[in-house]
């Protein structure tokens, strides 16, 4: 029985007239890998971004590792700036567009937050960052600037940068969507290995094969609500018509295509 890590209740968010999240609730246990799929505009990214309050929900409740928030604006438990920082320091996030800092080397990108925020001694932070970079196969690139790296390499560094904070939870927001097809694989492999080590992960993804093979649970977002939820098997045997239609639209003929098979074959264009 693993511990409850994250609890979200009735999260709501509108942009002007447009209600993007219509009261979404979710429980995540430590070690779970939850994939979030859905059409663009379904609210899945907004939901992910509301977990570390990059998008501040307009109402709803949240519990994470001793922090509890009530997002109603006048609430006594509305997150303070320092609570937000403390939440974000423990929740890693990786973005579609990598967002590495171009004025810092790979190593500086990875050590900046641990040195400044965790107050690690520089030598220790460098040691840990170098271990992370070795693990993702980019130790040799540690003194390069991000502009010298491929998209896949940059995204792996972005993952390492988040991991350097030793997060309890990792959020991945369509992290392979901006990558050239041949670079997607190396990033997915890294994410799969994190998952297998027990990292708790929430990922918004279009990689259906990956979601099916790696996640412990799948959420299907539609029009601001979780329209279907269940084990990865729902991607093979969807119940709701909306999920059936969605899968039909995005999968076409490569339903049999599997992420694990890909891993065996290595990267192929």
């Amino acid at each position, binding site marked *: 029985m693993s511990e409850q890590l994250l609890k979200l209740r009735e999260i709501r968010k509108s942009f002007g007239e447009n209600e993007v999240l219509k009261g979404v609730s979710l429980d995540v246990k430590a070690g779970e890998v939850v994939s979030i799929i859905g059409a663009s505009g379904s609210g899945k990214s907004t939901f992910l971004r509301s977990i570390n309050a990059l998008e501040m929900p307009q109402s709803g409740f949240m519990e994470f590792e001793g922090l509890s928030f009530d997002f109603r604006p006048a609430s006594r438990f509305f997150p303070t700036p320092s609570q937000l*920082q403390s939440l*974000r320091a423990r929740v890693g996030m990786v*973005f579609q567009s990598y967002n590495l*800092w171009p*004025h810092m080397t790979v190593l500086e990108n990875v050590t900046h937050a641990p040195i*400044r925020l965790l107050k690690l001694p520089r030598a220790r932070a460098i040691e840990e960052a170098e271990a992370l970079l070795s693990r993702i196969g980019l130790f040799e690139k540690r003194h390069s600037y991000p502009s010298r790296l491929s998209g896949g390499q940059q995204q792996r560094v972005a993952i390492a940068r988040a991991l350097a904070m030793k997060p309890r939870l990792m959020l991945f927001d369509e992290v392979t969507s901006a990558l050239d097809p041949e670079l997607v694989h190396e990033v997915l492999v890294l994410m799969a290995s994190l998952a297998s080590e027990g990292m708790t992960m929430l990922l918004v993804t279009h990689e259906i094969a990956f979601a099916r093979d790696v996640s412990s649970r799948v959420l299907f977002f539609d029009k601001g609500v979780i329209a279907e939820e269940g084990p990865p098997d729902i991607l093979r045997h969807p119940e709701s018509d909306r999920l059936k239609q969605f899968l039909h639209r995005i999968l076409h003929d490569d339903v049999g295509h599997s992420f694990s098979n890909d891993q065996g074959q290595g990267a192929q264009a």
Partner: protein
Amino acid sequence: MSGFIEEVQLYGPGFLEAAWTVFGLTILTIVVSWACGLLAALAQRSKWKSARVAAGFYIWFIRGTPTLIQVFIIYFGLPQIGIRLSPFTAGVIALGINSGAYVAEIVRGGLNAIPRGQNESALALGFSPSETMRTIILPQVFRIILPAVTNEAISTLKNTSLLSTITVVELTLYAQTLIAATFRPFEFYIAVAVIYLLLTTILTFVASWLERRYANLG
């Protein structure tokens, strides 16, 4: 006609001192203008409306009025309300505030050029907004705006000649003094022009050295 060497020996030290004054005025003015410019640019994106309005007014007023009038307001106007400044100090403040409005616009453009994701990735790691600004955003802005602030610094340097009107003994006023005594405006104004040219050239070299130093990043 006396020899060129003798002329240089006679007037050189005076010109050197005046050039030194211009150099000092310029450096101090740049410091003031960067401070004003950064403050105004940040105020423009503040969540407080009063800060945005104040910054907008500052930029509007400064850009819409002649620099010389601004200098006069600081040097001749302020004593009327009890603030008496030395010509040098008044000059630095007036030109600094003036150039700050232009620097603010440059910084604003630089800030707009930084993708939103740079800010978000820092916030998502737990950095405060101010630390994000200081360690992630501004260092990148600095690289982007370096060529534009160099231009602004050069124009600041040339604007110091306006301070001859409030008795700062810089190059222009020094030359005028000599001309009044010798009636040789042609040589002296050309000499002054050459010295200004030398100073702006040095400034350009420093700036291009800085640009080269940071060019390989990103």
